[in-house]
């Protein structure tokens, strides 16, 4: 046989059958394994969420005026959650809960979530993710840090802005823009890759949701070499109505990219750039149909009679139906009724002149002019047609039209202002809305004064008089209201002046700039609070102590038995937590010194010396009794964070602890705490000295002595702070400097000065701007320093678990 077919080995097929059958059985099993795993996992998460969610809500909605029992529960929860967080799964669930919660909450509650997230050190897990090799993990980390507003992550994340992995890059871009207001500038400056439309959509969404955002002038990026940056800048220019880039817009109409061209044309139309019409006409020929339509649409808005010739040419030469129709529509917009309906018209009925108008294209232009002249002279009949309605508007008396528009806008504005005003009555007002004063009126009162029927039917004069009169009345009423409100605010601020202080931050080199009071904005303060928590913790002990002295529930008799001591510890902890919750940590030392002085004197009168008894007892003592070793180690960290002298004594007792780890750690903590406390004691001494000076200041002849004493204190403060690891100073010292300068100039009582600082006077706006500028620079420097210390923390983080 010359020709023979190769033999088929059916065994191979049977082997394949077995293989596929085996795989089939495997998949069958996997279906149920997967299913069980999925449901088990979701069950486990749900169960854990049930446990953790109440704890989280306790933390989030913990009230500062809670009862002692509640406070005790709160402390127990703190320990409990610390224990739970040792398990990675719990950390994951907790992160998930917080991420979900932040989506549903806003305002203060949301900020609490952000704070809690970082307090529980969950952000360190997210930081770890940034180092992972898998893109989805890195992206998840970035997302987490962004959603939880970890500002310290900004420096890390912005490095990914040009990452070659698309998802990581996009996530980093969103994060950069979200975390800081200046992020958008950085992003537009540095991005090398294209920005997809979807990404632009998301970035704009981030910007739109910013509060108090002053966008940069986006025209700066119209010269970018990155095509997408130019495109996005154009869209942002349009969105923020930045009409200061007309020349660039006209140039961009000539761009090769149709999207850029289209956006530039849209901007030209929106901003009414009349000088662009010539360029639009010149580029028209080489454009796509949709761009042509867009150009014609723009010409219909901006065009004049001299543009009709160009449009006429289009009508006669253009082959595309849509473009042709649009050109006719544009002509009719510029010169109404140049083209009249031709479809379905019985031509036998039409007059000769009308026929001529329709049929003879060569004479159309002159007739357009005639028509326009006629239109100017005669009032037009009412019409439903869009173009006609526009034309009607053109023929309205411009002054009357302006008045109508003004009235409408005014009333809307007025309503908005009044609504805002009423809403904010119970809130803290930092400045008087004086810039709105001429616009302010009250709608309801206006309505009652002016009968709507009469207003509608009466002539313009009577309407004007009525409105003028009512306006006066309204204005006066509103002015009174504002004044009254102002007084209320002042009174409230006076009442709260002991507590309501702006948290002030200065750098350690404040000695050199001691005359410049650095006032941070609320946002900056928030940001700084988050980042400088560690620094503030070092300073807050003295504040807490001073504040604690104010509390009149302090027992007078000596605390002897352990129960009383434990109760006292709860009180103390409750106070600590209260302070954390209300931001008392950020009080200025000046207020503390005054209140401290008063209370201290008062306490001295009431009791011989109750404080030392309590002062010598550590709140951690009671907690240590019931804790396991792991919790003790965590509590030791807490001691370092919040502890003071009494903890030193307590730590000394731990030298004899049965556990080796606790002994070793307590020694380390003791040393660190002692090192931390040495400047604290000095600072307290300096504060005590201020009190003495303040008391003396009541006598008129002390004016000269004050600066001397204060400068002495300053020297002490700065010198002590310079020794600290972090270069940031406490808020108290910052305020102290402010107090000094203000007192020197105005000799104002302290609480009045406090009010001045909280409610920034309008006349000082310019000064404040300067201060803010300086402050911004200072804050940037500080952020860099905080970041560097943060990096150290991150690096040392794994050691904590060893």
């Amino acid at each position, binding site marked *: 046989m010359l020709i023979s077919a190769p033999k088929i080995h059916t065994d191979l097929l*049977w082997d394949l059958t077995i293989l596929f059958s085996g795989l089939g059985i495997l998949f069958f099993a*996997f279906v149920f394994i997967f299913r069980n795993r999925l449901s088990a996992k979701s069950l486990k998460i749900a169960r854990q969420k049930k446990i953790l969610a109440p704890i989280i809500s306790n933390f989030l909605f913990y009230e500062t005026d809670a009862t002692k029992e509640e406070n005790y529960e709160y402390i127990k929860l703190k320990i409990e959650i610390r224990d739970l967080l040792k398990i990675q799964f719990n950390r994951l669930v907790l992160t998930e809960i917080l991420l979900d919660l932040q989506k549903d909450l806003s305002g203060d509650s949301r900020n609490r979530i952000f704070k809690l997230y970082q307090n529980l050190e969950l952000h360190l897990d997210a930081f770890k993710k940034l180092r992972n090799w898998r893109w989805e993990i890195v992206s998840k980390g970035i997302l987490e840090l962004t959603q939880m507003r970890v500002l310290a992550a900004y420096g890390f994340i912005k490095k990914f802005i040009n990452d070659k992995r698309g998802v990581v890059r996009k996530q980093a871009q969103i994060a950069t823009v979200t975390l800081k207001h200046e992020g958008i500038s950085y992003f537009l400056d540095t991005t090398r890759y294209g920005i997809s439309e979807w990404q632009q959509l998301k970035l704009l969404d981030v910007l739109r949701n910013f509060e108090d955002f002053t966008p940069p002038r986006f025209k700066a990026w119209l010269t970018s070499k990155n095509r997408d940056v130019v495109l996005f800048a154009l869209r942002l220019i349009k969105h923020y109505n930045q009409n200061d880039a007309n020349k660039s817009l006209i140039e961009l109409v000539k761009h090769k990219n149709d999207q850029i061209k289209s956006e530039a044309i849209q901007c030209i139309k929106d901003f009414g750039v009349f000088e662009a019409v010539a360029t639009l006409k010149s580029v028209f020929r080489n454009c796509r149909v949709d761009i042509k339509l867009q150009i014609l649409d723009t010409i219909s808005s901006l065009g004049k009679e001299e543009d009709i010739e160009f449009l006429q040419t289009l009508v006669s030469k253009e082959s595309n*139906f849509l473009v042709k129709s649009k050109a006719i529509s544009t002509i009719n917009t510029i010169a109404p009724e140049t083209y009249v309906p031709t479809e379905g018209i019985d031509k036998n009925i039409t007059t000769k002149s009308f026929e001529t108008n329709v049929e003879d294209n060569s004479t159309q232009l002159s007739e357009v002019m005639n028509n326009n002249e006629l239109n100017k002279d005669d009032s037009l009949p009412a019409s439903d047609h869009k173009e006609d309605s526009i034309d009607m508007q053109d023929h309205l008396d411009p002054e009357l039209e302006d008045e109508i528009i003004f009235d409408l806008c005014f009333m809307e504005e007025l309503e908005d202002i009044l609504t805002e005003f009423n809403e904010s009555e119970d809130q803290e007002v930092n400045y008087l809305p004086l810039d709105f004063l001429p616009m302010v009126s009250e709608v309801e009162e206006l309505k009652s004064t002016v009968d709507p029927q009469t207003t509608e039917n009466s002539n313009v004069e009577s309407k004007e008089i009525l409105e003028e009169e009512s306006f006066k009345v309204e204005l006066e009423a509103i002015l009174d209201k504002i004044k009254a409100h102002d007084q209320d605010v002042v009174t409230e601020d006076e009442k709260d002046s002991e507590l309501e202080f702006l948290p002030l931050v200065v750098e350690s080199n404040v000695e050199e700039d001691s005359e410049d009071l650095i006032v941070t904005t609320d946002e900056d303060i928030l940001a700084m609070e988050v980042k400088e928590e560690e620094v503030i913790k070092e300073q807050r002990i003295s504040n807490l102590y001073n504040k604690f002295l104010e509390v009149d529930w302090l027992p007078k008799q000596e605390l002897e038995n352990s129960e009383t001591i434990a109760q006292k510890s709860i009180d103390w902890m409750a106070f600590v937590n209260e302070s954390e919750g209300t931001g008392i940590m950020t009080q200025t030392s000046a207020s503390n010194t005054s209140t401290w002085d008063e209370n201290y004197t008062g306490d001295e009168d009431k009791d011989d010396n109750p404080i030392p008894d309590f002062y010598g007892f550590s709140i951690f003592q009671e907690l240590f009794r019931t804790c396991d070793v792991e919790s003790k180690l965590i509590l030791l960290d807490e001691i370092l964070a919040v502890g003071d002298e009494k903890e030193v004594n307590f730590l000394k007792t731990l030298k004899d602890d049965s556990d080796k780890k606790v002994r070793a750690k307590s020694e380390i903590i003791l040393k660190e705490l002692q090192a931390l406390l040495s400047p604290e004691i000095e600072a307290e001494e300096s504060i005590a000295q201020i009190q003495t000076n303040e008391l003396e200041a009541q006598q008129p002849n002390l004016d000269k002595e004050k600066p001397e004493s204060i400068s002495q204190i300053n020297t002490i403060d700065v010198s002590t702070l310079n020794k600290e690891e972090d270069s940031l100073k406490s808020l108290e010292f910052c305020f102290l400097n402010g107090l000094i300068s203000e007192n020197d100039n105005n000799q104002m009582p302290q609480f009045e000065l406090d009010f001045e600082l909280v409610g920034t006077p309008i006349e000082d706006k310019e000064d404040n701007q300067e201060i803010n500028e300086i402050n911004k620079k200072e804050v940037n420097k500080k952020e860099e320093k905080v970041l560097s210390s943060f990096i150290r923390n991150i690096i040392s983080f794994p050691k904590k678990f060893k």
Partner: protein
Amino acid sequence: MDSSLFKIFIEYLNIVFLVFTLVLFAMFSIMGYLSTRNSIHYRNKNSFVDLSRIMASPLAPSITIIAPAYNEGLTIVENIRSLLSLQYVNYEVMVVNDGSKDDTLQKMIDAYDLEKVERIIDPEWNSKPIRGVYKSRQRSFSKLTVIDKENGGKSDALNTGIQLSENKYVGCIDVDCLLRPDALLHVVKSFYQRTQKRVIAVGGVIRVANSSKISGGTLEEIRLPKKWLARFQLLEYTRSFLLGRMAWGRIDSLLIISGAFGFFDREIALEVGGYDTKTVGEDMEIVFRMRRYMHERQLPYTIEYIPDPLCWTEVPESIKNLVNQRDRWARGNLETLFTHKDMFFNPKFGRLGMLSYPYWFFYEWLAPILEFIGFFSIIIFYYMGILNLDFFLAITMTVYAFSIMFSFYAILWDLYSYNQYTKTKDILILMFCAIIEPITFHPLVVWSAIRGNYKKLFKVKSGWGSQVRKGFAKT
């Protein structure tokens, strides 16, 4: 001599069948791998996206959803309500009444308070005359536009919609389809996520909604179909959309976008002249033409595929309707392949010509014919006593095992990705379907394909056929 030659011929025929089968296994295995990778990538990538925040963005593009309606009086009002409640701001619902003989138009006019409006229509556009354009007097239905035109078929209705739309993207859907509320957000994301390539079309998965609980135009509870025929189709759709198309999407060689849920860049759709009105496989044909258009101009482009279950539809529950549907699909397939025959193994079209087209030719068009011939050959050979029984049994069992294995994998992957059917009973039923499908449902599909090809090749006049809808509202 003659008998030995015949024997050799038979042996070579066996080898051809074997090679064909092994290539099929290889292709399906590669598809399984690619779709798995693509699904994982898609899942990871989209786990960071909060689509809802974007729906009212000033940069969000405008979309027109075109829904042709022919004798849909029973369900039209409810279906439109469902379309009007999608989570997106910048969109228009354009229902094209394709000369319905029932009260479809009147029901729409009554339910949505429609009035006739003037609309400029390009006289050069080639479609059946438009009788009127309707808009609602009520602001709450301002997104709705109804076009009433003379009957011209689905393609003609869609073309009218594309022409009259003024938006950047057009979505062509079946009016009886149920879209998930965030469907348009997914579509916009797909159109907008590329920087280097222009996305000319977006397709998505079609899921089976038979027996599911639907209320007020929204899917309330997903249930397994009660009818076996629908169950088989559910399994088939899962395999095809979740594994097949996902794999083609991964290598950017998708050649078909389902007519029930397909979105197009309007500019390109108009450039290629819209849908071909002479074919019943218009959804496949327009994709071929759009790809050709971009390829010939060497423009960077892509077609995106969304695996999320965004579109739910009612599949035929009677054998007659099913056979009609598959008959039409087979004819459409043949027509499209014939129209674009110059692409067959043409390297000018890259992967499209060298991979997608040949696959479609051999395994979508030729496979059922070979199966049909093979089935009859076996019977004849058996009676002639020349059947290689060993080989026949071995290859049949291999194909059968592979078929079950592949279906199981599809079920597994569906469970892992979307977990639609949570009851153990439902999963077991689907698995049972996978086991009996090759001997029950598949022959029906093969027969339908043969019928369709016969009709086309022998020019037997046949149109779209019709399917009587039960209507979602009544399920």
